[in-house]
């Protein structure tokens, strides 16, 4: 009994770390350009399929796959920012949100066109590491997911802390006008934030694809990322990490115990939405979010 519980917690922890990774992409865009990126889940979708293409179709080794996928993600992020988001700078919230929803639709359409909306499996192609803690065995995919997410998040943190553009991004999040007056180009910051979001999305997609295979349902991970973001507070990277882990564990435990009791099953799918509604009603700014004070 205890083993079952701990098993769920451990796999949930690894899953949550991947959620956190994806959610960070969302938070970075939001902090830098105040755009809500609904298409974050579709970056994951594209990532999952890219993993299939590079690993299976082209037969590349894992490191080359990651490299190629990241390159593709960078190009994708730059194109999206320049073509779709740039013309809408300064438009109302709804316009920006709708444009990212439309972007999500288009990415979904492209994935359908290129990969045929089919299930593409490639587990077993990622390296296998087995780890046993007492009686709990950590699945290889979870472990890889955990390691890659932690590495990516660390690189991202270092990037934001020590590079010039990273500092510029953090400054933009604080105050756009000040940043512009010291000569930092806001458009560069926006572009980099979209690139980061698409890169972390694609990495998350490859990791999740390694667990469950690439299919159109990967896009729904984006919705879980929103729950993570809301729980952690929309403008807190640390919050996203903590909330991602909490949500991953909660979801796994709840699904593990409650799914056999419910006729239709599929609790894991709606679980994030219940979390969302509860957070929105009782603590709209999340665990670590900034409480906005509005004045006329």
């Amino acid at each position: 009994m205890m083993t079952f519980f701990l098993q769920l917690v451990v796999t949930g922890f690894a899953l949550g770390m991947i959620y956190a990774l994806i959610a960070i992409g969302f938070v970075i865009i939001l902090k830098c350009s105040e755009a809500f990126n609904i298409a974050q889940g579709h970056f994951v979708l594209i990532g999952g399929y890219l993993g299939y293409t590079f690993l299976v179709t082209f037969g590349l080794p894992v490191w080359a796959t990651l490299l190629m996928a990241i390159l593709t993600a960078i190009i994708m992020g730059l194109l999206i920012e320049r073509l779709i988001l740039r013309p809408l700078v300064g438009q109302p919230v709804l316009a920006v949100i709708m444009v990212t929803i439309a972007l999500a639709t288009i990415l979904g359409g492209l994935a359908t066109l290129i990969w045929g909306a089919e299930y593409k499996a490639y587990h077993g192609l990622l390296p296998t590491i087995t780890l046993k803690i007492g009686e709990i065995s950590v699945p290889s995919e979870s472990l890889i997911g955990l390691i890659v997410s932690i590495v990516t998040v660390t690189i991202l943190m270092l990037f934001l802390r020590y590079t010039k553009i990273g500092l510029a991004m953090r400054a933009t999040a604080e105050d756009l006008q000040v940043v512009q007056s010291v000569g930092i180009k806001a458009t560069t910051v926006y572009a980099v934030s979209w690139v980061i979001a698409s890169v972390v999305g694609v990495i998350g997609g490859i990791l999740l694809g390694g667990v469950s295979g690439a299919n159109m349902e990967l896009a729904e991970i984006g919705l879980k990322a929103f729950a993570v973001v809301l729980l952690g507070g929309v403008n807190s990277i640390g919050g996203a990490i903590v909330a991602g882990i909490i949500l991953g564990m909660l979801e796994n435990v709840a699904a593990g115990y409650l799914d056999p009791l419910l006729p239709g099953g599929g609790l894991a799918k709606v679980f994030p939405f219940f979390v969302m509604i509860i957070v929105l009603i009782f603590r709209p700014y999340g665990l670590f979010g900034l409480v906005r004070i509005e004045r006329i």
Partner: protein
Amino acid sequence: MSSRVITVQESYAQDLAIFRTKFHWGVLFAFLLFLLTCPLFFSDRMLTIMTMIGIAVISVHGLNILTGYCGQISIGHAGFMAVGGYASAILCAKLGFPFWVALPCGALTAGIAGLIFGLPSLKIKGFYLIMATIAAQFIIIWTIIQLRSITGGADGLSVPKPTIGSIALSSKINYFYLVMAFACLATILAKNIMRTRAGRAFIAIRDNDLAAEVMGISLWSYKLQAFFIGCVYAGVAGSLLIHYYSFASIDQFPFMDSVWYLGMLIVGGMGSTTGAVMGAVALRLLDELITMVGPILSAAVAPQAAASLALISHGLIIIIFLIFEPRGLHHRWEMVKAYFRLWPFSHEE
């Protein structure tokens, strides 16, 4: 607005009237005559398309009141349609209610669901509210699947053919008239709701909610009213949709439809009753075009081309309108009218 010399208004009632000139009335009667005689010269397929347009118009009116006028963005509209549709379907199929009782009951149920999911809107707005309504969509559909004994779950639920009195609404023509009657009624009602105190309060809340509150508009009451009215519209549309197919299934209310209704609103022009109609008609016709072109493209390129064409064109249309015509077709239409009103002596700006 219109300031032609010959339209002299002598009373406030005349000034406020929706149809002010003889030309307006003429166009109205021509349009109603067109609707009445449609079955004479349209094929069954065309009638089906027009019925679907009518249902979309009703639904988009609801969304327009909620999002376009009151500024409470909802991406869960298909979910609320599902509530209304399923409620009336269950009343008809399980409890044997007549259609004309079940439909308003369904609409009311949808309105109450709207009130429940509208509660977060009292504390949150913008992106947070969007998330809450997306959550509403998924929770509603999940609940419908879970309540298998009542709703039929994922298998769906067959509903008897609707009748009103002794008139069976099973034929396409009868149902077309029913939907058109509802669509016209919905349009008139939507137009008039916006001219009441509530309507003006909605607009004030949309433009600046804090200022509205300071002026003495109860945000609590009016936001919930907007949710209620918008979702009642959705409920009517959902009931009509389910009774049209005589079958209730969750596939009739996918998440993408919620997005697509918002797309209709953007293409038509937010905060305008005419715009809501224009957007619904334009995008439904575009959908039909895609269904026609899709198989040809599928045969020519790849089997999945049709599905991806639908998705990509939906996304592109929304993006193009947001970037190049954010005020929608309605605004463009007003510009064209203004141009011809002064023609040939018009001068720009």
